[in-house]
């Protein structure tokens, strides 16, 4: 079958949404990068990119790509600080029956 093309920003316009969960545009990312520098975690906090349901799985690589293209050394690894849970999980799956 066909391999999906790598995500690319070449066709993106300033109003193109890069983070779909939180509806963050390319222009917003670029503006945040001027304030927050090349740090991917700081752009996340400034724009909410990566704070939605996908937790950055789709948008974080694109953000890293954008920051690197702007000359930033984007070596944060993993991209965002890891936060439990690893993927979204219903509260009922974690909560216990008894309440302290």
């Amino acid at each position, binding site marked *: 079958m066909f391999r999906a093309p790598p995500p690319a920003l070449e066709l993106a316009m300033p109003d193109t949404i890069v983070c779909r969960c939180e509806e963050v545009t390319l222009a917003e990312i670029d503006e945040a990068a001027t304030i*927050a520098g090349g740090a991917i975690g*700081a752009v996340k906090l400034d724009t909410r990119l990566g704070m939605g349901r996908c937790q950055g799985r789709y948008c974080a690589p694109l953000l890293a790509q954008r920051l690197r293209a702007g000359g930033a050394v984007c070596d944060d690894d993993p991209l965002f600080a890891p*936060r439990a849970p690893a993927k*979204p999980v219903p509260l009922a799956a974690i*909560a216990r029956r008894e*309440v302290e």
Partner: protein
Amino acid sequence: MSAGERDGDVLIVGGGILGMSLALRLAQHGVDVRVIDAARLGGSTVNAGSLHVQMQSRFIRMESPARVEAVRRHQMFYVRAVREWEALAAELGADIELVVEGGVMLAETREQLAFLEQKCRIEERLGLAVRMLGADELRRVAPYLSPHAIGAEFCADEGKVNTLLANRALERAARKAGVRVHRPLEVGGLERKGQRFAARTAQGEFTAARLVIAAGGGSGALARHLGVALPVESEPLHMNVTEPVAPMIRHLVQHADRQLTLKQFVNGNVVIGGGRPAFIDARSSLPWVKRTSIEGNLSLALHLAPWLAEVRLLRTWAGINAKTDGLPVLGPVAGTPGLFIAVSGDAGYTLGPFSARVLAERMTDRAASYDLAGFGIERFVAAS
């Protein structure tokens, strides 16, 4: 950066909610201000954005009656702080998702109800807009709570604010007003040099005629460089956030006796907290969460809001409370002219902007919006 660019009138170490608000106010008063912050964005950026006014039950249970009494004397400061948030939101001209629709502190037992009734009487006498809600009224006002909640103390001035949006708008306004922000840049040392202060950093030495230490839980270590004892601790607290769901929870919800806060932001995320412990990981020095806090917190949340069962948990994190004796530390340091401390303490995010307003008034010899007498650092000297 040339040496001259690093020399100014006021240097603020710490660009969190208090430091950046102070920078904005001073710049508006025509003062030359610089902010240095160790983080990539100002402050710890981990506050969850509750606006607290009624006394938190956690504080009453954990602190001595004398400390509770001392904070009681300044409860109107919290009300003024929320008014300041409303004014600031209008002034910033950006949507920071500020919602002031009141807070409920709920009870599940008769004992808890009695505790709240007594607390409500005291707070009403102090001038807070509080009243008790019986079971029926609570059901009407807060239909998102389960029948386990049998009553509550309602406080009209409580609310919530989206901290990420607020910090972002505040810093942009401060820069526009002329504040120069240097970060990420750590201060490695502070010293007195003649009539001025010097801050050692990787980008050289910054000097200023006046120095403000506004670094939350890190303020004690900074003050020590200048021989000043400032008892403030970093207290990591556990937080959870769910995926966005339809708007249900209007209020800031707290519990009279158990560790729970619940609130929902404008974008639909439900934030669940309540002061359960997190910790600073020794290896990475990063705040980290405990499994027991996640389980305990979510179990109690489902007990009181069972409709959250199928809502998914997105993230957990450790917020950092800058713990003082319960009151802000705001004002000059006697014996070190030009040195100021700015730590707003418990509920520090709520108190940040108003604390900044009052300290800026003090630093520019303006009429005071609030008497800072009870907030001086000298109280710790007197106590030790």
